[in-house]
């Protein structure tokens, strides 16, 4: 996507909302600027949400395609980032639901309550997991993946994407109090999971 550098600089000064309005008038350069601004943020968010690098990139591209197709649906009611995160989170939820359906259940899982706060994965590790096993981040990601979906989305949006409570409430469509309580409860669960799966080596 080679573009004029001076033109790109002018677009870099514009806000997200100004860019989307330009894109609504079929200004493709504005769309390219939006992609440049949000591609890393969205991929990071979706990676933390799904735990898969490939899937996160695919989902991020789908999010941008949705934005491309339904650009006219954006209204100047809220922030562009809120609207775009909503698109991304809806795609991620759909992806997770599909994955859950495909997942085969073990005999032990039958009859268990699936509405628990977190679900620990099996003890057996994949080869790449063994390589990264010494890294704390690996375990943190594993703990996030183990979290229930309703805690996971608010924890990622708040503690990784660093969005404020109001914005999270708008993205998720939940009341502010519910968002806050879910965040606290999610942190509590995450702490508990981490304490179970990761024990830092003592020097």
């Amino acid at each position: 996507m080679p573009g004029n550098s001076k033109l790109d600089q002018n677009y870099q000064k514009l806000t997200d909302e100004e860019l989307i309005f330009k894109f609504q008038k079929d200004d493709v350069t504005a769309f390219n600027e939006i992609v440049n601004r949000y591609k890393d943020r969205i991929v990071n968010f979706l990676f933390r949400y799904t735990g898969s690098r490939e899937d996160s990139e695919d989902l991020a591209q789908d999010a941008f395609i949705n934005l491309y197709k339904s650009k006219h649906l954006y209204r100047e009611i809220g922030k562009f980032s809120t609207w775009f995160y909503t698109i991304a989170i809806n795609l991620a939820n759909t992806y997770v639901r599909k994955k859950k359906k495909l997942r085969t259940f073990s005999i032990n899982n039958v009859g268990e309550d699936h509405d628990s706060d977190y679900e620990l994965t099996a003890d057996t590790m994949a080869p790449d997991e063994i390589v990264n096993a010494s890294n704390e981040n690996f375990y943190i990601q594993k703990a996030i993946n183990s979290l229930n979906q309703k805690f996971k989305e608010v924890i990622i949006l708040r503690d990784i994407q660093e969005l404020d409570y109001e914005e999270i409430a708008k993205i998720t469509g939940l009341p502010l109090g519910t968002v806050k309580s879910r965040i606290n409860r999610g942190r509590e669960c995450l702490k508990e999971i981490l304490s179970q799966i990761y024990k830092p080596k003592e020097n």
Partner: protein
Amino acid sequence: MDSEEKYLDIRNKLNNLEEVKASDDFVNKLHYKIVEIESEKRHEHEKRFDEGRGGFLRNLFSNIQYPWLIPAAGFTILIFFIFYITYLNKDASEKNQQILSTQKRDSNEQTITLQPPQSSVSEKKTDNTIEPQETLTGKNKSINKENKDIAGDLKDQKTPKPQELQDRKSITHNKEESKSISEENYKTPPSVTNETDKDDNVKQNLAMKKAEPEEKNNSGILSPRLNNKPDTSVDTERLMQNKMTENNFQSKKLLERLDKIDDKSLQILRDKISAN
């Protein structure tokens, strides 16, 4: 204790997680997908456009909001068309009638001047009695056959029986009185005939009618002239008179036409004609 401070440790851990960035070919892949979507859109649009290509009528009426208007509009147009045609024909027929009436009027004028005026029933009766002995041609034969019957009836009426003869003698006196009245009746209306022809025709008719009552009144029986062929000398005279009147009429008509065309330029021609 604030919840943010309470979970500060886990918050820091999450915040310090390594940020995952999009791959280098992320944008290229995205653009490739967008181009694919655009081409699909275009393809679908073309497909719809091709499907939309129907017949001439379909293309003509497919974009109309209210398709039920089409037959209604067609019907109204048809009614207007029929009305228009009938109206035109009415005008044309009126014109034709006018032309025909003028032509008839002209021809009537000619025939009125040419024909001797019909006098009375008695003359008709005489004509009918003459016919059986005359040589007839073409269409007149059929008409004369019908007239034969009428003539026969008339003969029965005219041939006096012995009882009727006495009654008729008394009637003859009254007929002499009615002669003067019949003479007045023979006169044609002034509007129909020309002034010049009028006198000639009246004279002619009077001469004819004067002769007829005399023939009838002598014996009360029809005269031998009525039963036999008419005198050829009288017929020739009548024909000559008719020709004369016809010539006069034609010349007068020509003069009228010349008046209509150009008075000044045709004055010389008029003089010449009058001189001739």
